[in-house]
């Protein structure tokens, strides 16, 4: 079970140059809007044709520009879940599910009907067989779309931002449902999303995509712990960055914040930037400890379960316009209210991300 993708395609303002491999299981592709991630899925499904490259699924060449191979989407045996589900509005639930079985060698009409009935039962659609998609709820529509795909047992399932048009409540419910229904599928699943939470929840393996390229690939947890590049760290939701300079094995200068940071562990050799997550800043009262930033409050925004503080590091003589974000979750509110504004914010060594910032450099 393996998918190999190496494709190039000119898109509007940039070149897509994707190269990655994915194994059986759930792989997430995280990228900003318009970075070419949907295009990647469409290329795998055969809906769009790359300019160059190769796509191989389980040893079968789906696309090879040099050898002029381009298997039509009908024969690729991929399941594509569209953002709007793309259910056929003129067909009933039953007919929609059967649509994927008709073109295939599904063993005749009787076998087809049996498979449809089986999918309807499995996906909790009993009683809705004769309804048209427009009279279904969002959740039911998703189930029909999934049933339609899983009915023909595709080798790869491609999920194209399946939740981005939903409200928060429904999103949560449908994510859970999707995971539940896909749990027994043993093929390859590729999900594309711009939402860090969605991807973290869904995927085992993560590919972070910059503009048309793979930035980092690895296990989801590892990549979130160590995103390698600033672009990737931004996509994992890291809010605070500073240009940095390695001073010694245990010290670095965070230039934008005007402080020196000291570590117990030996610093990595190559990095020119550090990142620090907004949730990991610790308030400190009284005497200054190691790795503390003196600051001035710049602004405060309250969310239902979180307070967001925007602060400016107080450096000698001048305060840079480099705003640091500090998120305090509910548990920390009481201390904050009781003791007021902390004197310093402390950076914990474990929370520091050592990054490469590619912008402005010749690679």
């Amino acid at each position, binding site marked *: 079970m393996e998918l190999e993708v190496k494709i190039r395609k000119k898109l509007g303002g940039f070149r897509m140059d994707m190269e990655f491999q994915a194994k059986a299981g759930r792989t997430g592709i995280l990228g900003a809007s318009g970075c070419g991630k949907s295009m990647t899925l469409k290329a795998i499904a*055969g809906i769009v044709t790359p300019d160059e490259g190769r796509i191989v699924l389980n040893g079968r060449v789906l696309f090879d520009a040099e050898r002029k191979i381009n298997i039509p*989407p*009908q024969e690729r045996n991929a399941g594509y879940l569209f953002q709007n589900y*793309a259910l*056929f509005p*003129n067909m009933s639930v039953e007919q929609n599910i059967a649509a*994927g079985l*008709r*073109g295939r060698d599904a063993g005749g009409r009787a076998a087809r009907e049996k498979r449809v009935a089986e999918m309807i039962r499995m996906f909790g659609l009993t009683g809705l067989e004769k309804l048209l998609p427009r009279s279904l709820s969002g959740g039911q529509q998703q189930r029909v779309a999934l049933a339609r795909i899983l009915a*023909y047992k595709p080798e790869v399932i491609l999920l194209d931002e399946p939740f981005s048009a939903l409200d928060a409540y429904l999103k949560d419910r449908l994510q859970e449902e999707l995971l539940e229904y896909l749990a027994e599928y043993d093929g390859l699943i590729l999900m594309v999303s711009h939402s860090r939470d969605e991807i973290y929840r869904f995927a085992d393996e993560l590919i972070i995509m910059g503009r048309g390229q793979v930035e980092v690939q690895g296990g989801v947890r590892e990549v979130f712990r160590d995103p390698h590049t600033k672009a990737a760290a931004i996509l994992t939701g890291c809010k605070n960055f500073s240009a940095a300079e390695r001073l010694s094995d245990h010290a670095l200068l965070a230039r934008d914040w005007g402080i020196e940071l000291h570590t117990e562990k030996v610093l990595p050799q190559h990095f020119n930037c550090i990142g620090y997550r907004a949730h990991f800043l610790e308030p400190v009262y009284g005497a200054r400890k190691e790795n503390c930033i003196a600051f001035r409050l710049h602004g405060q925004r309250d969310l239902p379960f979180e307070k967001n503080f925007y602060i400016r590091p107080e450096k000698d003589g001048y305060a840079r316009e480099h705003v640091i974000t500090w998120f305090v979750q509910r548990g920390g509110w009481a201390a904050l209210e009781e003791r007021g504004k902390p004197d310093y914010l402390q950076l914990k060594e474990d929370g520091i991300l050592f990054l490469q910032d590619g912008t402005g450099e010749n690679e």
Partner: protein
Amino acid sequence: MNGLLEILRGLDWSPLWISLKTGVVATILSFFLGILAARRLMYAGPGKKSVLDGILTLPMVLPPTVAGFFLLLLFSRRRPLGILLYRQFGIKVVQSWLGCIIAATVIAFPLMYRNARAAFEQVDISLIHAGRTLGMPDREIFWKVVLPNAGPGVASGTILTFARALGEYGATSMLAGNIPGKTATVSQRIAMVIQDQNYLTAGIWVGIVLLIAFLSIFLMNWVSGKAIRNVERW
């Protein structure tokens, strides 16, 4: 009043039947040809598309008499195609009812084709992509997904086509002529009786045409209303 009844009783109704028959046959022909042409063009490359689109739309833009002139050149029994049709199959296009049908079809076809194409292009592209990844052959995607979801647009194209075919005058008079009881359509009869200063008879025909126009629009709206119910609209 008695005079009007007298005229109605004495009226030659043949133009009505000729027009209706011509309109129906031309609409059926345009319907299928227009849909096929629109389908073919949907899958054509951009260059080919614009050239073919120009050719297919031309009869709508040209003055009907010019289109009639070309048709006459093509089907005249002094020219190769006309000679071939007559000698081999005994088919006579010029000055015959077949001429009426061909003229009306050629003039009305672009309306069907353009409306069908516009309706197909309105269909959500992800439905077509979904069909393809599901393994449906392109032909099946077209007939089972694109066409049903383009229903309302196709229906309104059909109304316009029928209306246009029913009232065709210029090309018909060039190709089929105005032979009473054979190729004399309502439009041609109206023009003829007005030339004879017979305004009352012309008025009666105009009334009949108005009636047919309204009836066909109501009928088609009713049919497309049924089609619309399958699709969500604003």
